[in-house]
Each structure stands twice: as structure tokens, then as C-alpha cells.
């Protein structure tokens, strides 16, 4: 076996492993979201994760991958439908020395994660049909366009935007869609009082939330380190290091921020701090030194706790704080390379320029900011248009009766926790017997 074949095999294995880790993050989202919502919706919230990934798999295979990575113009790819490969069709991914099938599987994992993030804004009150319709459209019309702009040879990529694994492409997109959804859907029943003060609607299982967070943390090694799509130079190890340092800093910063701001060392806040830090370091993991990764993680973990409290006070019911954790942190992470991208790492990755603190001037900062603003505007406008039309036609929200009885029973006919919620399983009194 020649060295070239060996490297091809090793790279392929690594990308396969990374794809499994990223796809495995769906399990993390299922636990995180189900644990952070109420018992009466748990089966629905967890189960829709499979539905969502299944929809994304088919839609991304048929159209999404082609729009993202297919040859085309600066705005969309126009070749490679149903993964049909021709001469130069997927040149934007030619730097990765692995089979096209694996490139697809790995990138599908990212599209699936972005969609999973978007669902956070729909939680506990959206109709099941909305998941079918919006999930499909998001995977074809929204996610691939930004993906193409940054990674598929589009205008942002040509400007030198640094988004190594998708703080903007994956996370900010999902978060903006979540924010638009949560605004159009309105708050859950009981979330706000008449005077607009917010009530707590606690998740039903903090252990699920924590385990979900841990699965996502592990999955992120596939997400970020896997984005090297190669093992030869060992750079994936460096990316894994910055990823882990940021996550650790985010956890500590978030729990301390919660303690300082509200007086309690809130566990879900710590989990969200880890995720916010991971989101932020996703863009920067290959461009920044370890010390900067710690700063980026800590700032994201801390700041997003504050924003989650702030948005809640402003009357936005984002049930699992998707916009703060993925949106605000996505912005922080993307902008961060404008400050912290080191010349050494820019040379290794070959993308963009060094950041402000290394004397690189404002160039990269401006590119990063343009990237964030451009992506946010596109996703917001298109998501709003789609969801608004859906609201006016098929409707977005279940009825109040369905919401109160819970989506498990109203949409699926069975409770996730029948012994606790279904009267048929409740112990009967002597009189009832």
C-alpha cells in the first residue's frame, strides 16, 4: 500500500469518525431540549430530532449539498443535484482528500445541527406540520445559501471570511431562524404575566440537560477538529485543544456570571455557557492561540447568560435560549478572529488575514462583520417570509387546548411519561376502584 493510499484511507476514516460524532450531536440536542422543556412535551421534543435529521438528510442530498458546494456563482451553487458529480462540480471541497460520500455525510451533519438549533425557537408550541415544511425549506433555501457564500466559493469566502467550522454558517443561521420563529409564534402560555413580567417554566430533567450538553461537547471534537478533514499534519489535534479550552472557560465563566448576576450557580446556565463557548470557538478554533480561545470561550459563556436574561425581560420567550447560545455566541465567535487571528495560524489555514491584536489592522474585522451582518439579514428576511406565509396559511401554532395538554398527547397520541401524566396509569383510590 502506497503512502498516498494510506493517507486517503486515514483521512477517510477520520472524516467518517467526525461525521458520526457530528451526527451523534442530534442525540445531545434531543436530551438537552427534552430536559429543558416540560414533561408533557418530552416525547415530541426528543422525537422531532429524528424527524428533523431525516428531513435534512433527504433534502440536503437532493438539493442542499449542490447549492452549498456545487459549482455556480458567488451566491448559490447550481450543479451537483442529488450528489451527481461531474468535472469540477464540487471543486470547493477538492482540498479534502476523501470520497464525496463522506464529504456529504460530514456536511450533512452540519446542516442537521443548524436545523436542530432553529427548532429551539419553536419548542413546546409549534405544529408538527411546521417541522416538515420549514425543515425542508430551511435545508434547501436557507442553510445552503450561506454555506455557499462562505464555504462553497461564494462572495464571503472570496473576501477571506474566517469561519472554520461554522459559527456563522451553522449556528448563527439556526439561531436567527429560531429568533424569527419565537417572535412569530409568541410566548408559551403562562410564560409572561399581564404586566409582562416573566415566569420560570423549568425544564423537567436537569440530568438530561447536563448529559445532552456533555454529548454535544464531545460531538464538537468532530465538528471542529473534523473540519480539518485530514490527519496528516496533525492539525486536528490543535483544533481540538482550542475547542476544549474554550468550552472549559465557557462553563466556568457562565456559572460564575450566573452567581454574580442572579445569586445562584445555575446548572442549565453552566451547560449553556459550555455550548455558547463551543459555538464561539467554532469559527476561531483554527485561527487563534490557546490563550485567545480561553478569552473567546469565557466571553461567550458569560455574555450569553446575560443576554438570555435580558431577552426574557424584553418579552421574548426563547424556551431553550437558542438565540443567545447560538446567535449571540455565533456573532462573538465570528467577530473574534478579527481581533485574535494569529499570523502563524492564518498561514497554516490559508484563509484571511491576521487580526487586530497582531497588528493586522481592521481588514479582517471588517470582513468578519460584513459576513455576520450579511448572513443574519439573509436568514432573517427569508425565514420571516417563509414563516409568515406559513402562519397565514397552515398556521404555526397548536391550539391553546393542545398546548396545555401537551404536544405528546395532542400531536402523537401518547405521553413521554405516561405513568406521571396519563390518568389511565394513575393509582386509583379505593372509591374509584
Amino acid at each position, binding site marked *: 500500500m502506497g503512502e498516498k493510499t494510506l493517507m486517503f484511507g486515514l483521512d477517510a476514516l477520520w472524516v467518517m469518525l467526525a461525521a458520526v460524532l457530528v451526527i451523534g450531536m442530534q442525540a445531545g440536542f434531543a436530551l438537552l431540549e427534552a430536559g429543558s422543556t416540560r414533561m408533557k412535551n418530552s416525547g415530541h421534543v426528543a422525537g422531532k430530532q429524528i424527524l428533523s435529521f431525516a428531513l435534512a438528510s433527504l433534502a440536503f442530498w437532493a438539493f442542499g449539498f449542490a447549492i452549498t458546494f456545487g459549482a455556480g456563482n458567488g451566491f448559490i451553487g447550481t450543479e451537483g443535484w442529488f450528489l451527481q458529480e461531474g468535472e469540477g462540480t464540487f471543486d470547493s471541497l477538492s482540498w479534502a482528500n476523501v470520497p464525496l460520500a463522506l464529504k456529504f455525510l460530514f456536511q450533512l451533519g452540519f446542516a442537521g445541527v443548524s436545523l436542530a438549533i432553529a427548532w429551539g425557537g419553536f419548542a413546546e408550541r409549534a405544529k408538527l406540520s411546521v417541522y416538515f415544511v420549514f425543515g425542508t425549506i430551511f435545508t434547501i433555501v436557507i442553510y445552503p445559501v450561506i454555506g455557499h457564500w462562505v464555504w462553497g466559493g461564494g462572495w464571503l469566502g472570496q473576501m477571506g471570511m474566517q469561519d472554520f467550522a461554522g459559527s456563522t454558517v451553522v449556528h448563527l443561521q439556526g439561531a436567527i431562524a429560531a429568533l424569527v420563529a419565537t417572535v412569530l409564534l409568541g410566548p408559551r402560555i403562562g410564560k409572561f*404575566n399581564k404586566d409582562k*413580567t*416573566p415566569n*420560570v417554566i423549568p425544564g423537567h430533567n436537569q440530568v438530561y440537560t447536563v448529559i445532552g450538553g456533555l454529548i454535544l461537547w464531545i460531538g464538537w471534537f468532530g465538528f471542529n477538529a473534523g473540519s480539518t478533514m485530514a490527519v496528516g499534519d496533525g492539525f486536528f489535534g490543535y483544533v481540538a485543544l482550542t475547542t476544549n479550552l474554550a468550552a472549559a472557560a465557557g462553563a466556568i465563566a457562565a456559572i460564575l456570571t450566573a452567581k*454574580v*448576576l442572579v*445569586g445562584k450557580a445555575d446548572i442549565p446556565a453552566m451547560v449553556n455557557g459550555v455550548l455558547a463557548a463551543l459555538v464561539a470557538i467554532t469559527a476561531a478554533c483554527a485561527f487563534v492561540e490557546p490563550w485567545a480561545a480561553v478569552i473567546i470561550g469565557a466571553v461567550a459563556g458569560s455574555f450569553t447568560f446575560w443576554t438570555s*436574561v435580558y431577552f426574557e425581560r424584553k418579552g421574548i420567550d426563547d424556551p431553550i435560549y437558542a438565540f443567545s447560545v447560538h446567535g449571540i455566541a455565533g456573532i462573538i465567535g465570528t467577530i473574534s478572529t478579527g481581533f485574535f487571528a494569529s499570523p502563524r495560524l492564518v498561514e497554516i489555514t490559508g484563509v484571511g488575514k491576521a487580526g487586530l491584536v497582531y497588528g493586522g489592522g481592521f481588514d479582517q474585522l471588517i470582513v468578519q462583520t460584513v459576513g455576520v451582518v450579511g448572513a443574519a439579514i439573509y436568514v432573517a428576511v427569508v425565514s420571516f417570509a417563509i414563516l409568515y406565509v406559513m402562519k397565514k396559511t397552515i398556521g404555526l401554532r397548536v391550539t391553546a387546548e393542545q398546548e396545555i395538554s401537551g404536544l405528546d398527547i395532542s400531536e402523537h397520541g401518547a405521553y413521554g411519561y405516561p405513568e406521571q401524566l396519563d390518568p389511565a396509569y394513575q393509582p386509583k383510590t379505593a372509591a374509584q376502584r
Partner: protein
Amino acid sequence: MLAAVTDRLKTAESVTDLRFCHDELVRELRRWLALEHIEQLAEEVVGVHEAMFRRVFFLAEQETVKGAVGIRPSAWCWYVMGSIGRREPTVWTDQDHGILFTCVREEEKGCYEFIRHMAAIGTKMLYEIGYPYCSGYVMATNKRWAQSMSDWERQLSSYLDGGWPNDLRFLYIAMDMRPLYGDVELADAGRRALFAEVADRPLLLARMGEHVQFPRVPLGWFGNVQTERWGPHSGAIHMKQSGYVQIANALKWLACLTRVPAVTTLERQRMLAESGALPSALSIDVQEALAVYYYIRLKYSTEVEDGREYVLWQTLNRAEQKQLKQAMRTAKRLQRFVARRVVGMYE
């Protein structure tokens, strides 16, 4: 400043008259409220409340005697606790009161009947004139707080021996006992006995010192105020639990430790400072903090009747926010002062 209200109270004969006086107190307070007069105002406000309570207790006694219910005890005393006991009530204060009595053993059952009937009338009347029922049921209608002297002593022993968190809470409540109507010596003796018993039990005293550390003062490490995050009082602070109750409990504990017999918070602070048990710098800060807490509680209690212990942080003006933050810092310092004394007791 509030003499007109007090005068009117002397001739009040009905619930309607008394309720009018309570409302009049609010109106008068709005005219006079200012931080610089706060000590004098506190005296006058508590004077009005005491006059109101005494009048109610008198009317309740009259009605019970008229109804010939049970046997009137040979000696009995209606006492107050809580903020009225410590002489620092706002306008709309909860009912916190109890009754102690003595009688010959054979008549005890009849005496209990008399006391319960009278307590029911008085408590209802207080409610009708604007004193909400105590959420912790610290009222003479609760057997725990309306007893013969012998039963009270037995109960006190169980608290002293038990030392469970609830026992400590009851002991702290009972430390504010102040007689208001009837044979004052009964309640005074009850309180003196309590202080002496606690002071003689170093381990119990240490446990009670730990109790002073809770609830924690909602002031973050960077001097940020931690308001309520959720619920109808989101963005507000609970004025009692934001340092005030911590100071009141710390002073009670220090008074117990150093055997200072005072019953009101200000008396305790002054006597502790005089005896050297409280360093003078801390004592001055505590006095200022108490004035700030009282002023803000009083001011906001004249504006709202419901949720009166919660104050929206944003509705406080700049000066009040600054003063309150300083008061909260003082409360934390006092908690730490007690904590250090407690550690010393275990060594």
C-alpha cells in the same frame, strides 16, 4: 406629625373608625416622609399601630366578656412580635401577635376557651382594618402563640432542646415579644427567660449564629443588586430579605450572646455599641442602614398595598439605589462579623 391620627384613634369604636385611621396614617405619612425625620417618624408610626392594636384588643376583650365565653384568666397579656415588636413597622404590616396567660390548673380549659374566642375576634378585626393575616400563622389564633405560661415554658424547652431549623426560626420570632395589652410583666418575663436560656447554651447559640447567615444578601461580588428573575416581582427586590432581616437577626443574636435585654432593633444596636459588643464603626453603619431600609420600606408601603415588601429596583431614584446598596454591604459585613464570632464559639 401624626398626632391627629392618634387622637382620633382614642375614640374609635368600630372597625370602620379604625380602618379610617389606618388609611389616614398613609395620607399623613405621604406628607411628612423624609429620611432626615425617619427616627421621629418611626416612633410616631409605631405609636399609631400600637394604639390601633390596643384599641382592637380592648374591643375584643369587651366582646368576649360580654359574650360570657369561658373563664377570664387571672393574668393575661397580648403581645406583639415581628416588625411591630421591634418598633419598625411600615404602614401595611402583617399581624404578628400572641397571648400569654396564667391561671389555676382547674380553670385552664375555660381560660383557653376565653383566650381563643378573644383571639379570633381580635385577629379578624385587625384583618378588617388593614392588617393582613400572617402568612407564617404567627397569630394568637394559633395555639403555638397563645398559651398558658406553663405550656409556653414546655414549648420553649422543646425548641431549646430540639435545635432544628424550624425551632431556631421560632426562637428568633419569640425574641421580639413585646407586651402591648394586659399584664405586661408576663411577656417581659417570657422574653427574659428565653434570652437567658439561649445565652446559657453555647452550642444552640452557635447554631443560631449560623442561622443569621441566611438568607444571603442579594448583592453580587461586583456590587450588583440581584433582583428577582422570574414571577410577578421580576426586577424587584424583597425589602425585608435584602439585608434588613439579616441585620435584625444579627442584632438579636448579638444581644443574646452579650445578654443585652433590649427588645427593639434600635435599642439593641445602641446597647451593643455602648457595651463594645459591636465595633463603633460597624455600629454607625448599621444604624444608617436601618434608617435606609426603614425609609424605603415606609415610602413604598404608602404607595402600594399589595406586594408591599417588593420594590422594583428601577423605581428607586439614584440616591436611594446608592443608599440601599450601601445598606446591603453593611448587612453583609454584619453577617460576616457574626460568622467570625460563631467560628470562635466552636473552637
